[in-house]
């Protein structure tokens, strides 16, 4: 019996994702919910690239998201670049910030997470500083409503989600990803086996930053009028982490499932039973931690199903 090609599974996931989010606005007209769901799916997947494959948990992941949002908005405000180009450069700005923060990898475990959190707050405070009002708008926020285009930003976010998923599939299936996972398990043995730890870890970090930056750019385009706290709020980091963990990190479909299900639940309770929101959401997280510490994907892996 012939073994199916290695890229068939990920390819199917990409096609399914594209089809679902292409059709969904025709079935459900609150495009904003779908857009935000895609944003968190992309962020959960981006975070998965780093945490799922290297074990480094970036509490300050929102720093890249906010950087992308602001870089895109500033490029739209001060240049005549097309918005798509500004979004791409927003991703690049996040990569530059990632490079600057590269030395954080001298730390590990909770020290890395906390230092990363501090870095994101520093970026936030710089952007929101009143002295930078002529450039960033400071605490007054920024307005790019002249380019507000919900459909175009929706399509862009879908493309970013597909790119993040393709990257996760590459990490999962490639020799490069194998090196990352080896490093996650035992960095010294991986190094002795020829894995260039510093280089591979940095690539994963920058890829993760790029996804957050791109998502931030598309999010800013969709929001178009916002204050710094809207794109630097720690809630974004927390959601990305919880969603990724709920689905199961280190897999391709885990973060997608986790973000889609939990966000749908979040949006559903928010509309139908807002008075029970915190109770129900908190209960769900407690149950997850108690009974599914490795996420939803572990339900499938226990039954030897390939979760990609």
């Amino acid at each position: 019996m012939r073994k199916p090609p290695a890229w068939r599974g990920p390819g199917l996931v990409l096609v399914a994702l594209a089809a679902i989010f292409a059709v969904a606005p025709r079935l459900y007209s609150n495009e904003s919910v779908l857009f935000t769901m895609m944003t968190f799916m992309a962020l959960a997947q981006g975070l998965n690239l780093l945490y799922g494959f290297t074990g480094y948990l970036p509490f300050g992941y929102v720093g890249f998201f906010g950087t992308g949002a602001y870089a895109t908005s500033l490029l739209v405000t001060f240049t005549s670049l097309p918005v798509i180009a500004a979004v791409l450069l927003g991703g690049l700005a996040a990569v530059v910030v990632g490079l600057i923060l590269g030395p954080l990898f001298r730390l590990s475990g909770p020290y890395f997470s906390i230092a990363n959190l501090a870095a994101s707050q520093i970026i936030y405070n710089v952007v929101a500083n009143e002295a930078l009002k002529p450039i960033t708008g400071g605490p007054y926020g920024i307005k790019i409503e002249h380019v507000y285009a919900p459909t175009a930003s929706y399509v862009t976010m879908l493309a970013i989600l597909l790119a993040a998923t393709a990257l996760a599939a590459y990490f999962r299936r490639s020799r490069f990803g194998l090196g990352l996972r080896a490093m996650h398990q035992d960095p010294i043995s991986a190094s002795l086996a020829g894995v260039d730890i510093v280089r591979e870890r940095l690539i994963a970090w920058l890829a993760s930053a790029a996804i957050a930056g791109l998502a931030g750019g598309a999010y800013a385009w969709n929001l178009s009028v916002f204050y710094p706290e809207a794109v630097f709020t720690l809630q974004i980091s927390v959601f990305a982490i919880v969603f990724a963990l709920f689905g199961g990190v280190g897999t391709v479909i885990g973060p997608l499932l986790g973000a889609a299900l939990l966000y749908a639940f979040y949006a559903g309770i928010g509309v139908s039973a807002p008075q029970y929101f915190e109770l129900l959401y908190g209960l769900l997280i407690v149950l997850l931690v108690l009974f599914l510490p490795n996420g939803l994907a572990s339900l499938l892996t226990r039954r030897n199903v390939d979760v990609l």
Partner: protein
Amino acid sequence: MRRPFQRAWTACAAGLLASGLALSAAAAQTAPSEIKIGTLYASSGAFAVPSQSQLQGLKYWAAGVNRSGGVFVKAFDKKIPVKIVAYDDQSSTATATTLYSQLVTQDHVNILMADFGSVLTSVAIPIAAEHHMLLIDPTGSGANFFTRKTNYLADISIPTSAVWPRVLGDFILAHKIKRVAIIYDSNDFDASQATTLKATLEKGGVKPVYDHGVPTSESNYTVLIHTIAASHPDAVVEFGYALNDIAFFHALSGSGLHFKMTFSIFPGQLLALLEKNVGTKALAYTFTYPVPPLVVYDKTNLGPNTGTFVKAWTAATKSAPNALDTAGFNTGLIMQHMLGTAPTFTQLAFHQALIDMSGKTTTLLGEFKINENGAQLGEQLPVAQVVPEGKGLKFVIVYPPNKATGKAIYPAPRN
């Protein structure tokens, strides 16, 4: 020979189009069974207290009009009951974005009203414009919102934040206070006030001796207050949200320091909340903006005057209304007049009705006056001082002179 035929076809097509438009207009003018007002509130997070008060005020107004058979809608020449559709955004802009969209695309509300404050209003502005809906903005006063002409935004129950401190600046100059310290939260609402105050003071030749922005999440002012004291100010102006004010007064009373004049925003809006958290003594002789119902408007030409409203609210809810309750109620009142005067049931007609009311209407919040950018330029805020009276506190309006009910006690005595 073909031309007459072409003309005939063109005429027929135009006729069909016109009848189609007339039919669709007639369909659009079918009276709904209820007027749906969609809004958001925050049950938790930074804006929970004021947001819920604003919603309570709106609900109180809706209950009142529904008791009398609904709100009169001129476009249908009849009264129609009001239904409020409200979702909880938990003070999160991301959640608010999806919920505003929910109100427009799923609930198909007739009127879209923003949550409390600038942060939660900001994300509604592009959504409203995209869907060609007028955004009724009760308390989102960010100066950044009102920079260009729009048919889809109207600031109803609060003046745009850039104009708030003008009277305060004049008061400081009139009292020849030369050493002023300003500490403010780094958000649109507070920072724009700091900017306006500095500009007003600088026109009078006063340059602040201390001028510092802090994060909106600031909760410990102890070190900051000592730093301010080191600059030897006569007046300390603190611009923050209610939780910042509480933290500021806690730190000030705990520090043992005393300034000749202390100003903050929320004693004038949520006095009961501040008294409960920091005590009466800590607030004595503080200066603030007194917002109705703390400042009274006896003569109105729309709705009850302040005194009548306070009495009715207190009888119905067994508690006195605060400024945000009043703002929510006033927003309902303005919407009621808007529906009662708009000749057609369209968003543009609603907007035009508001423009037509502007400058001619006085409610329990004072003069309603919006400009073409949607900014509220009426409802100006005087300066008041919180003065001990028995075991409690009372407000004395001290500036401008034509509204003053007493004289400022300056320098403030040490408590």
